[in-house]
């Protein structure tokens, strides 16, 4: 049976853990708000860019040079998978769900006979894949800190990817990330980054088909604009993913810390009950000793 003092120390230590987790929850909540604002601020740019791209995509019939970002290499053999995780833990299943999903994806691609390489973004996925499939890692990024560095963080990843792509190192790039659904829920999502998947954006485009089809003057010409536009689109897609993942991370941490705080509260309650019971038992025991001692005289 634990002594009263042991229980008291345990209560105190759970109490201070609760203080830490509830502070972390507050911090995550305020960071979440900020990164949500950032994600929203980035939306006009990416949506405009997509619109422009959709109206230009039709002119990209030839598969040479930069246009390959749109049309693909014509092969389907070498894949690069980019898992996007957080740099820090203590956010529930946020990182492990990314790692699990990526692991599953890699296995299933390999079962289809493809060559798969990895380019993890974020410390947690980098460390994980360094342990389990070190030989597949092409490159990795950590401490990108998108909420501070902004667009430059995305450029680092995007430039590296495009460099490798034009060196012919891979044919397709899939990014795996946590899509921000609401403050408390994230959805693990796969998105094909290279070649550009226009199928989903063109669906939206059909709504105002007449506006998209209207004749534009292009300056200098469609091809040159497309050549400028495509690499930027890859960067902006990565930027969007990083921002969503950042917001998701704070949301997940907030939820995890909320749970931890609640658990700590419950634990303190049950420990306090145990403490009182033990104390009561000691008193009873002492009373019995005194009474039985008095009786025996």
């Amino acid at each position, binding site marked *: 049976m634990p002594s009263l003092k042991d229980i008291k120390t345990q209560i105190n230590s759970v109490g201070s853990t609760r203080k830490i987790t509830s502070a972390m929850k507050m911090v995550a909540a305020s960071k979440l708000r900020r990164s949500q604002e950032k994600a929203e601020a980035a939306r*006009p*740019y990416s949506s*405009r860019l997509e619109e422009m791209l959709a109206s230009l995509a039709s002119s990209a019939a030839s598969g040479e040079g930069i246009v390959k970002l749109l049309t693909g290499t014509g092969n389907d053999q070498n894949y690069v998978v980019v898992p996007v995780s957080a740099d820090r833990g203590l956010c529930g299943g946020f990182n492990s769900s990314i790692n699990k999903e990526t692991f599953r994806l890699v296995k299933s691609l390999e079962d289809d006979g493809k060559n798969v390489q990895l380019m993890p973004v974020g410390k947690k996925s980098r460390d994980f894949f360094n342990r389990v499939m070190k030989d597949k890692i092409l490159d990795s990024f950590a401490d990108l800190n998108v909420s501070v560095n902004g*667009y430059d963080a995305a450029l680092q990843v995007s430039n590296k990817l495009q460099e490798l792509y034009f060196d012919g190192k891979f044919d397709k790039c899939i990014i795996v990330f946590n899509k921000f659904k609401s403050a408390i829920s994230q959805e693990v999502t796969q998105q094909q980054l290279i070649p550009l998947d226009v199928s989903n954006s063109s669906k939206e485009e059909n709504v105002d088909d007449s506006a998209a089809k209207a004749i534009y003057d292009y300056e200098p010409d469609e091809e040159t604009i497309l050549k*400028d536009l495509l690499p930027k689109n890859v960067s902006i897609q990565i930027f969007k993913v990083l921002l969503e993942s950042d917001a998701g991370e704070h949301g997940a941490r907030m939820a995890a810390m909320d749970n931890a705080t609640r658990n700590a509260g419950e634990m303190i309650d049950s420990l306090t009950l145990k403490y009182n019971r033990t104390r009561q038992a000691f008193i009873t025991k002492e009373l019995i000793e005194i009474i039985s001692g008095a009786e025996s005289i």
Partner: protein
Amino acid sequence: MATISFDLVSPENLIFNDEVGMIIVPGKDGDFGVLPGHSKVMSSLRPGRVMVYGDGKNLLKSFFVSGGFAEVNPEKCIVLAESVDEVNALDKSSIEKEIQELSGQENDMAKEQLGIAKAKIDAIDSNFYEKV
């Protein structure tokens, strides 16, 4: 007088969004002015100044963009720029320092940066189009 709606958007945020009288945009093949009712144009941009004029053709704001795209239709002009600074906020001495650092380097990245930095200096010095 007629106005045209103008958006200046960077990846990080929406920088400018208002009804204006005229905009001058640094197109890849040369600057062009956009007035209300302009025909539909899509253009890529070179590093340079995007100048925004009010209703009476008074200069409202002057931005430096490092490149990007412009989409123009009769009611609206949208500039998507990768990095945007207000020309007044640029610091000439620090840019000149940057130019010195970059001018020794040979790779493509540095050359591109150098071009942008030089264009920044031009933007600060230039007083073209300040009165129209």
